[in-house]
């Protein structure tokens, strides 16, 4: 074969990989913070719609709403609600962490800040659990 006839094929282009957002092959605390922030964000949007549905019963009078709240006293739903508390606290606190980072505050301590966020989240969840059960 002569050089004129030879051509190396084009390199293989990678596809967009959504999995990287949710992959657990993380390199550091910041990666985990990102993953959790994204997951909790998505969960909260879903919850927002659910919350709208629950409140929509208000428009159908007292009975409809009160029937639903009785349902919500079930231990399973209470547990979900506890999860909700954890999700909200995490998303909120980490949101503050992200805001501080963007203002170039505590960038060197971002890992420690993540651990603080996690600690407060867990603590709040435990306190909430004591109130609920």
């Amino acid at each position, binding site marked *: *074969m*002569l*050089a004129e*006839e*030879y051509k*190396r*094929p084009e390199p293989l282009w990678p596809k967009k990989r959504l999995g990287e957002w949710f992959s657990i092959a993380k390199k550091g605390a910041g990666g985990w913070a990102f993953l959790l922030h994204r997951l909790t964000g998505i969960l909260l949007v879903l919850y927002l719609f659910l919350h709208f549905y629950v409140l929509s019963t208000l428009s159908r009078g007292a009975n409809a709403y009160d029937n639903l709240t009785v349902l919500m006293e079930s231990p399973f739903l209470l547990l979900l609600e506890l999860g909700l508390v954890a999700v909200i606290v995490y998303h909120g606190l980490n949101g503050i962490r992200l805001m501080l980072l963007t203002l170039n505050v505590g960038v060197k301590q971002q890992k420690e800040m993540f651990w603080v966020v996690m600690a407060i989240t867990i603590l709040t969840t435990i306190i909430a659990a004591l109130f609920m059960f």
Partner: protein
Amino acid sequence: MGKPHVVIIGGGATGAALAHDLTLRGVRVTVVERGEVTSGTTGRHHGLLHSGARYAVKDQESAKECIQENMILRKIAPDTFELNNGLFVAITEEDMAYHSAFIDGLETCGIPYKEITPKEALQREPNLNPAVKAVVEVPDGTMDAMRLPLRFFATAQSNGAIIKTYTEAMELLMSGKTITGVRVRDHVTEKDYDIGADIVINASGAWSDKIAAMAGVHVPLQPSPGVLVAVYGRWNNMVLNRMHRSGDGDIILPQRTLSVIGTSSWVVKDPDQLEMKKEHIQLMYKMGSVLVPGVKHAKMRAAWAAARPLIGSEGEASTGRELSRTFKCFDHADHGGVEGFVTIAGGKATTARGMAEVTTDIVMKKLRMNVPCRTRDVVLLPHTAYYRRRM
């Protein structure tokens, strides 16, 4: 296309400078390199922009080449070097005995220098061994061992040179006693193909004799590896050299955030079989800490070996230190009777441009072209220009 075509075997500093010079003089150029560019010896050298002072006593031809090229490179590749100068320091009485011969050498070779007091040297380099007895400042510098050649490649490429990486020369195509091209293997696609050439230049450094053997000719070359050690931290800002005959571990070179201690020296037959000498790592630490005591406990980043391509016949050298660092160009029409084949061997990264100029002059004569060299003045493109979409 009426332009003559030259194929360069070897994508190191020499190949890069050659591609640049040849394209400037109106030749079509193809470079073939079996790995990534600068993956052989070029990338692995310690990154010293030589002032020539190291060779000023024993190897004055090489020293003169170095200082001349040093000054040219500063002009054509601005902002590629840490131009912090270098110090030659005498620490022992033995070093002091070398002092006058050293100064004489610098004078003879025309290397600018300045003697400074040990006190001033310690002010400039606080980590230097306080036992220092005499200090001479010379225009050494640090280069980026990969990015300087990349600037040559980038400029050559923008002038039409084709650089083929992962393409290994397997065979030299000959018609009688004349080279007509190269059969190469693309390691990406595992396909062999032929590149026709008016002239083939063997710029494969320590591998030169292996390539020359494909044409049945011989290059007197001694691959001479040395071990280098990189440690974390920048222990000095200037290049620090021991003021004595070149020996093991006599230089500490700052580079980015690291310091590189070099080097040892021995000779091998096959530059691919570079077994690391473990005891040399300890030796580098030991000798390096004579210059800068602090490096004794510095954390090691890497230790590696690189094969210098030194000109010399087998048996002539036992460590490689005896051999000159100068370069030589072999037109194989005169060395072995093969037409259309030129080998450039020896030399240093600092002198790559000069090696290319001499070689290209010979190639021009062979091609019956008469175009003068312009590489002394043409400012090189930035290294990032090397990475552009290829056609």
